[in-house]
């Protein structure tokens, strides 16, 4: 927030004219918005429409046939169902851990203490890293032979023979989820810390006077007041988790076998390994639908909060 300038809520309705000239309707706002709208229509809306067409056609050019086959195929495709399941498990587990860890860290750091700024800055490192670098970092950490994790375990006398992490069919999904938690817990932490610091002091004083325990205060004061920040953190994380691609691509490319293949990775494989663009487009609409339904659910919760 600006130093001297406090945010002000604008409730007054600004007239759709130049305030001090008497032009009936100013074209200015439309002119200012036009370039942005044009770019987005050309590069977001048009590709989407184009993608609908790709998903509904087989064959190309004059031999193109309109068909729903790309969508009906989804129902019987084991790879797709597995990818969907991996995506949902990935999102649910990572979200749970990121939320719990992020909230704990935020609560720990919510009071003034020595070194807080430094600690906060250091925690930013994982989430600011390019996703590809995150992939590299964890390939180095998790490598079964010389990775830092197995190396350290070995030097303490553990048997690491079966701990092959991203190369193991059973551990691979857990490994990529752990990497996501490592990278994105700081984000949840930061948003919740900002939320905590925006809570005024008075409710806490009231709770203190009422003699409520620390746990009661947390449950009945902190959590309800933190709700908007929690919902925003969860919303943004969920949308990101459902679309996850980069780190998994670097860490496992969806393998071993297809054990870590999420929907985004399967779409990529269909489009750019098998040139099956129609099917890839059809799957991308399922992903879009899934993302939209879940984000609408969060936005509902947020709005209910504001109206309450």
């Amino acid at each position, binding site marked *: 927030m600006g130093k001297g300038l406090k*945010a002000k809520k*604008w409730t007054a*309705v*600004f007239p*759709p004219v*130049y305030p*001090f000239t008497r032009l009936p309707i100013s074209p*200015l*706002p*439309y002119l*200012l*918005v036009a*370039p942005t*709208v044009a*770019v*987005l229509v050309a590069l*977001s*809306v*048009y*590709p*989407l429409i*184009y*993608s609908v067409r*790709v998903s509904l056609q087989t064959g190309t050019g004059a031999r193109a046939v309109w068909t729903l086959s790309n969508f009906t195929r989804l129902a019987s495709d084991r790879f797709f169902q597995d990818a969907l399941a991996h995506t949902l498990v990935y999102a649910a587990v990572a979200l749970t851990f990121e939320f719990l860890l992020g909230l704990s860290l935020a609560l720990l750091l919510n009071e003034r203490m020595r070194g807080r700024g430094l*600690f906060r800055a*250091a*925690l*930013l*490192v*994982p989430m*600011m*890293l390019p*996703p*590809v*670098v995150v*992939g*590299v*970092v*964890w390939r*180095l*950490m998790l490598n079964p032979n*010389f990775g*830092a994790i197995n*190396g350290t375990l070995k*030097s303490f006398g553990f048997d690491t023979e079966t701990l092959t992490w991203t190369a193991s069919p059973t551990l691979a999904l857990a490994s990529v989820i752990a990497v996501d938690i490592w990278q994105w817990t700081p984000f949840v932490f930061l*948003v919740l*810390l*900002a939320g905590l610091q925006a809570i005024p002091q008075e409710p806490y004083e009231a709770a203190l006077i009422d003699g409520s325990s620390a746990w009661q205060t947390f449950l009945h004061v902190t959590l309800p007041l933190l709700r908007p920040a929690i919902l925003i953190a969860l919303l*943004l994380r969920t949308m990101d988790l459902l*679309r996850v691609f980069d780190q998994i*691509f*670097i860490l496992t490319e969806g393998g071993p076998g297809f054990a870590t293949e999420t929907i*985004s990775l399967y779409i*990529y494989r269909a*489009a*750019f390994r098998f040139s099956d663009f129609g099917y890839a487009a059809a799957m*991308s*609409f399922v*992903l*879009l639908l899934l993302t939209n339904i879940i984000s609408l659910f969060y936005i509902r919760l947020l709005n209910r909060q504001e109206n309450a």
Partner: protein
Amino acid sequence: MRRQRATGRWATVDRSLFARLIKYALLAVALLAALAPVYWMLTISLKTEVEQFAVPPRWFSFAPVLTHYRDAFVARSFGQYLLTSAFVAVVSTVCAMLPGTLAAYALARFRLPRKLDTRLALWILSTRMFPPIVTAVPLFLLMRDVRLLNTRAALVIVYTAFNLPFVVWMMRGFFQEIPRDLEEAALVDGDSRLGALRRVILPLVAPGLAATAVFCLIISWNEFLFALVLTQTDAAMTLPVGIAGRVTQYEIKWGVMSAAGVVAMLPILVFALAVQRYLVRGLSLGAVKG
């Protein structure tokens, strides 16, 4: 009675000291968990191949060498990828900032009929909410049709569109924080609206403009999926795609890859430090004003 109270006080001091110790211990663990993996990559980039494979792992005692950096950026094409990344990030940031800021100003200051201003703002935000793979497939086909695959132009175009909604939402928030009286005063003094924007408002939102631009640079620099899909040649590839190509090859040059990773990470750390104050805001698309 008095004695009892005294021990009571000592008990609370003890407990708070204990709590503080636990707290610092937990924070130390979190700090270690966050930074150790990154530090490990740094050490691998500086170790000879023999030391890279040492068991137990050498965290501190190794003889640093710079050969991997020379290998990556002189002998291989990582220098070129680096330039491409920088070029694409800077140009797409400029291309998104100009129209985005103007649109943000309009959406922050004008009330359009039928709530068009709010609806437009939400629509702009919604284009940012698509999973990138959804537009990556059609954009690949469209870029292929216009023969822009494997060009920097393709990436500049796509990143501009990707950053635009972000710029609009960030800058809209910053504009809304400037009291309206300021520019009304300028308007009364006979300034045109754009004159007032340039002379009065823009200087006030300069920190916001800078932060937004830095975020655009970070987003473009880090972006992977579109770059992977749209560029496959050495001449057009960005640094993340170059690194990914090395990682997934059969034989991996760990030192070279780590060196490239360290170099890809450095500008981001500097940028992140620069916008630390706005970080929460940027990462939540302006939703949390931290």
